[in-house]
């Protein structure tokens, strides 16, 4: 509209000839000039090829608005639940939502959820070219611009370290035993995790190339200069044994230490009191374990945790168990004994028990019978015709 107006003015001026250039100039000053670059994106751009990057369904302002709404909603929720809005964490939000919107759905992902928009809306790339179709990034035409730019960065760093090395050699201060980066207890990010970070798909060979380059970087003596960069690509492994909660060690009126623990296996539930009294008696449901478990295998299951820890004749066990069959009951009791033993045993032993499989609950459960079949797996007699 302004352009046509301008052209219109110019055409009038052209018709009436030129009264003078200064007249033209002043005229042009009055008319506002067109900006050189467009701020908004016209809808015509959407029709261009967006397959590589994926279409940008949510604009940045849309996401910002969502974040604002989330924060406000969080404060409202905190007020509703009567808690302090300042210290309202994500766990509190989850708890409150589960309370306000109780759902009987089995699929946890189908239940109502209130999380930060970063976690809900998938990460996506912004449009990577301008109005005239020129891409912003110099590696756009490789197809995987973030991946190759990452490789480029890593190689830059390698070169920088080599230059640093040369400098130190020139000065005569070159030493091989510099500070090394601690890599124990962490692992390289998986291919899926790197894809998530780069927001584009990479192949297995690409991933291996990247890891090789990182290891090359690590092999250089002065790699500690880039420690922060490298640790961005390593993930800490949690220490598994710290996950188990050790049942508290309680004391009898007589001063005898005892601990209580539960165990489950395949719909059998067991509960155990382990007393540190010095005899090896075991009572289950009021009966001696020799009578309750006539089968040798079940008694061996009971024996295994005590044998492993080496405290065979030391404990008195009083247990109650119900449900399922004799083998499952023995398994449930074994798990309960192992858990109760945790409070009598040192840290290193806990790790050993975990590795022996004593503390893992057996997840196997009876498989469902399917319609159209005799049982869970068995089919009806197959008839050719």
């Amino acid at each position: 509209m302004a352009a046509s107006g301008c052209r219109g003015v110019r055409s009038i001026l052209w018709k009436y000839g030129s009264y003078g250039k200064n007249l033209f100039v002043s005229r042009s000053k009055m008319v506002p000039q067109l900006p050189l670059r467009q701020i908004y994106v016209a809808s015509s751009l959407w029709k261009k090829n967006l397959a590589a990057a994926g279409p940008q369904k949510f604009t940045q302002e849309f996401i910002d608005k969502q974040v604002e709404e989330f924060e406000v909603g969080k404060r409202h929720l905190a007020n509703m639940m009567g808690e302090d809005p300042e210290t309202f964490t994500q766990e509190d939000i989850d708890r409150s939502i589960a309370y306000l919107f109780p759902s009987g759905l089995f699929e946890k992902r189908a239940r109502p959820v209130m999380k930060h928009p970063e976690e809900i809306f998938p990460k996506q790339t912004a449009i990577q070219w301008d109005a005239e179709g020129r891409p912003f990034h110099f590696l756009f035409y490789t197809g995987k611009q973030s991946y190759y730019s990452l490789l480029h960065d890593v190689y830059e760093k390698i070169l920088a370290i080599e230059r640093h090395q040369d400098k130190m050699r020139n000065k005569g201060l070159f030493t091989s035993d510099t500070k090394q980066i601690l890599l124990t207890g962490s692992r390289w990010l998986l291919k899926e995790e790197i894809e998530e970070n780069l927001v584009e798909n990479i192949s297995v060979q690409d991933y291996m190339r990247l890891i090789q380059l990182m290891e090359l970087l690590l092999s250089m003596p002065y790699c500690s200069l880039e420690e922060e960069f490298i640790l961005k690509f390593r993930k800490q492994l949690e220490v598994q044994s710290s996950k188990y909660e050790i049942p508290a060690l309680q004391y009898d009126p007589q001063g005898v230490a005892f601990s209580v623990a539960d165990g489950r296996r395949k719909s059998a539930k067991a509960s155990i009191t382990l007393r540190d009294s010095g005899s090896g008696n075991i009572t289950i449901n009021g009966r001696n374990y020799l009578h309750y478990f006539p089968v040798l295998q079940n008694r061996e299951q009971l024996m295994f945790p005590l044998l492993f820890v080496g405290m065979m004749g030391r404990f008195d066990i009083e247990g109650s168990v119900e449900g399922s069959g004799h083998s499952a009951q023995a398994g449930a009791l074994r798990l309960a004994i192992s858990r109760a033993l945790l409070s009598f045993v040192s840290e290193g032993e806990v790790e050993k028990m975990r590795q022996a499989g004593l503390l893992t609950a057996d997840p196997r459960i009876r498989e469902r019978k399917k319609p159209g079949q005799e049982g869970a797996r068995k089919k009806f007699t197959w008839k050719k015709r």
Partner: protein
Amino acid sequence: SSTDGPKSAHFDICSKNLKYKFSENAFNTNILKRHSGQYYTLPPTHIQKLFPYGLPPRFQLQIKTFNEGCVMVRPPALELISYLKRADYSKPPLRYVLYGDIGTGKTMSLCHALHYCYSQGWLIVHVPDAHLWVKNCKELLPSSSRPSRFDQPIQASQWLKNFKITNERFLSKVQLERYVWTKRESTEKGQPLGELIDQGVNRMKSSSDVVGAVLRELRLQAGGATEGEGAFKLAVAVDGVNALWGKTSLKKEDRTMCEPEELTLIHNLRKMMKNNWSGGAILTALSQTGSVFKPRSAYLPSELLGEEGFDNMEPFVPVSVSNYNEKEFESCYLYYLDRNWLQHPHSRSEEGKKELIFLSNKNPSILERLCAFL
């Protein structure tokens, strides 16, 4: 006893005292007490004569394997033997009932006491397992003498044969009564016992009645003549005595259940259990393993005998048999090591021993079965 291979010092000290030979004064109380927890060897001749059928089947296998029969001296047997020594045999016989959990050694203690009686020259009436008479009978004949009773010819003749082997010395006893078996056969007064038994063995049809006659004769004669040649003491040993008053698993021809009283053998044995005779002792042991229709957790006399049985057996001297204690377990373990029965190298270590203790809870029969495949 041979010792070879790496063994602990403890074992070396014990191995000399582990077993002792059966000798004349083996049943002397002091000697027995000293050897409590240790094994003594049964002489093979005695095993053949006294126990062709009386020992538990697994123990018989063990005798065959080890080529010797070793019995552990344990408190219940010691108690029984001491009672037997101190009893007054002019009065009616005392009834002793061995009771306890399954696999604790009731039958073995009974056999030990019986061995004592045999070595003292008593006459042994030994029913190895009364449960065998109450179930799984192939032939059940209506009795020849009484209409409402049933005979078991096979079991009766089997028992008579065994009785003959055990009590050979007493076969020339004189009997008192006259018994009529059929129109043509009868045993006259004054004939030796041996002939009566032969009669029963040869004529299967009347064997159950012969059993009854034998038992009656022995009852009448045991109390008589305390001095002189004809004196003898009678030991009645019944294993699984709760079968006499329990239920049977036998059916009559019209498919109704048989009561124990309707069986001749059981009826006669019950008469034997009463203490209306003198000059002997009645040793019995309860047993749940062979019993019919009894729950596995029952082991007390009141549970296994039932009301009727309890009333009949009363008054009796109960002797309880329990699992091994520490010393006895140790002794049993060393015995198995000595005979090289525990082949697995781990079983010789302390850890292995603890495992054995745990898994068997020091129960003799379970320990034996456990060691069988080690």
